[in-house]
């Protein structure tokens, strides 16, 4: 273990860290910590505070207690649909897109020909900007000259893929998966490359077939990657905003918590207290997942 060695070494030099070490540590830990407090945690806490007030962004700030939360749950018609959509988004990315990315990674990793080519193509959507993805959604799914409607041959009575509130959420989740799958694949590929090939060879000599090798040898060693992928999947789903906002500003069947926050804070109404209350709901859910993942991750680190 490193700490034993460090302590042993420390005993020899009478102290574990020299004065210069302390300065380096102080500066190079201090700067990022300060930055994170100012940019991330401070504002997050401030939002929690603002969620108990009413404020239009200019005038006075009034303390209103839990009123915002009460209104949110009882009177705000878009709230529960948004929660449902967010949950559906998590389920879709987690149960469809992420396993598909893993499957692609395993196939590409088998050392077949052209694997580099496949890999590059599959990763391509990840580097595209949202503006491009939103534009392509319109090109493909539009009602006037959309390609999908042309292919399925119903130009006379086109399906409004982006406007019809019963299908547009699914189209958006597909568009989001387009980028998510490639990202997950590249993370798993990185993990798979680092699995010792000798282990797989040993399993093959013992007569394990490919499936057994994968589930008993490869997959368990991917645990750290699984944790990262899990976090990214849930968080991406909770953060989903860009694509939806680009298509129709998150209205008419595409309501998400992130959209509601933006509407209230940046929109004309500028109900900052109320918007902050939605932000705090999203924050709590996110933090819930984050803490569960981190605790599990730290337990894993201790076992190792």
């Amino acid at each position, binding site marked *: 273990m*490193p700490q034993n060695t*460090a302590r042993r*070494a420390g005993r020899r030099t009478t102290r574990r860290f020299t004065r210069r070490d302390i300065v*380096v*540590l102080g500066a*190079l830990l201090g*700067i990022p910590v300060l*930055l*994170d407090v100012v*940019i*991330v*945690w401070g*504002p997050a806490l*401030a*939002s929690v505070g603002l969620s108990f007030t009413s404020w239009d962004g200019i005038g006075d700030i009034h303390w209103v207690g839990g009123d915002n939360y009460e209104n949110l749950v009882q009177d705000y018609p878009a709230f529960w649909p948004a929660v449902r959509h967010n949950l559906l988004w998590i389920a879709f990315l987690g149960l469809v897109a992420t396993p598909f990315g893993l499957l692609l990674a395993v*196939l590409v990793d*088998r050392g*077949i020909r*052209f694997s580099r080519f*496949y890999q590059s193509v*599959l990763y391509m959507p*990840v580097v*595209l*900007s949202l*503006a*491009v993805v939103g*534009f*392509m959604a319109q*090109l*493909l799914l539009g009602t006037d*000259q959309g*390609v999908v409607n*042309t292919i399925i041959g119903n130009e006379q009575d086109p399906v409004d893929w982006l406007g019809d509130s019963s299908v547009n959420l699914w189209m958006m989740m597909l568009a989001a998966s*387009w980028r998510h799958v490639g990202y997950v694949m590249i993370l798993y590929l*990185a993990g798979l490359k*680092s699995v010792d090939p000798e282990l797989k060879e040993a*399993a093959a000599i013992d*007569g394990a077939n*490919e499936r057994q090798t994968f589930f*008993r*040898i490869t997959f*368990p*060693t991917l*645990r750290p990657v699984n944790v*990262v992928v899990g976090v990214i999947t849930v968080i991406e789903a*909770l953060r989903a*905003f860009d694509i939806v906002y680009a298509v129709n500003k998150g209205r008419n069947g595409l309501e998400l*918590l*992130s959209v509601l926050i933006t509407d209230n*804070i940046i929109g004309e109404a500028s109900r*900052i207290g109320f*918007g902050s209350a939605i932000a705090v709901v999203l*924050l709590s859910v*996110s*933090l819930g*997942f*984050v*803490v569960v993942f981190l605790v599990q991750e*730290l337990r894993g680190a201790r076992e*190792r």
Partner: protein
Amino acid sequence: MTADLKSTTRAGDVTPIAPGTAPDRRPRRGRYGVHIFLSAVCLAFVAPLLLAVYTSLRPYEETARDGYFSWPDKLSLDYYREAYTASGMGTYFTNTLIIAVPAVIVTLFLAAFVAFAVSRLNIRGGLALLMFFTAGNLLPPQVLVTPLYVLFLKIDLPWWMSDSMTLYDSYWAVILVNIGFQVGFCVFVLSQFMRTLPKEILEAAVVDGAGVWTQFWRITLPLCRPALAALATLEFTWIYNDFLWALIFISNPDKLPITSSLNNLRGQFFTDYNLLAAGSILVALPTILVFLLLQRHFIAGLTLGSSKG
């Protein structure tokens, strides 16, 4: 890496299979199946991109008449020229570089040190620090917007740093927010990565009297090159593609980065999808090139040659 594997999968975990079973020889047909499957998925993945490229090469009248999915009469690069000149994309590309390059470098440097301290030095509170950064990156950006906006308006800067005289409406604001927000993700990934490096290398250095800086800069960081290259690629594309921060913290349209300029283009020419397609491809091109160029390094490095010794 090797030590890591040994502790997680012991030899006993492998169920022995009756001797005499032929060792795995994949049938040729299975391989064809994989190729067919992967080709089909790849085709589905690039189809929208190819369609956009195809559309951008054709005159608007033609696609308006026959639809996007029709045989071309005439192909030209005119729309690319028009999109580039009409929207002043050169300036916006420069703005993006002004923001993204320092942001990526500083983020990686700071995150690498934090990850090093958390995973390689046995400092007190290391785990708490890791959680502090990781959890911070996972917060939804919308939660932070209002307080940051108010804060940035209140911070004054000298004229030579920002012509708006405040942090608001300056490149600094966007650079700072990107760094602060992305450091957490990089800390998480890099500390995961550093944990897999062999401890012996660092122990040897400590015995030789190397200080914290040497242990970090000369010994740990070179081993992290593959991870750093991968993260640099990701971070560059993320910061390049971001438009939320720039839209909120920059008010002067001349300072906007390229992704937001596509938004302008979209507003000006939203009926002419062919021109918009050309603009979109121009915006997408740099990130695609960055990925393709860094990819070789990225994949070659992932085998972690140095840790096997």
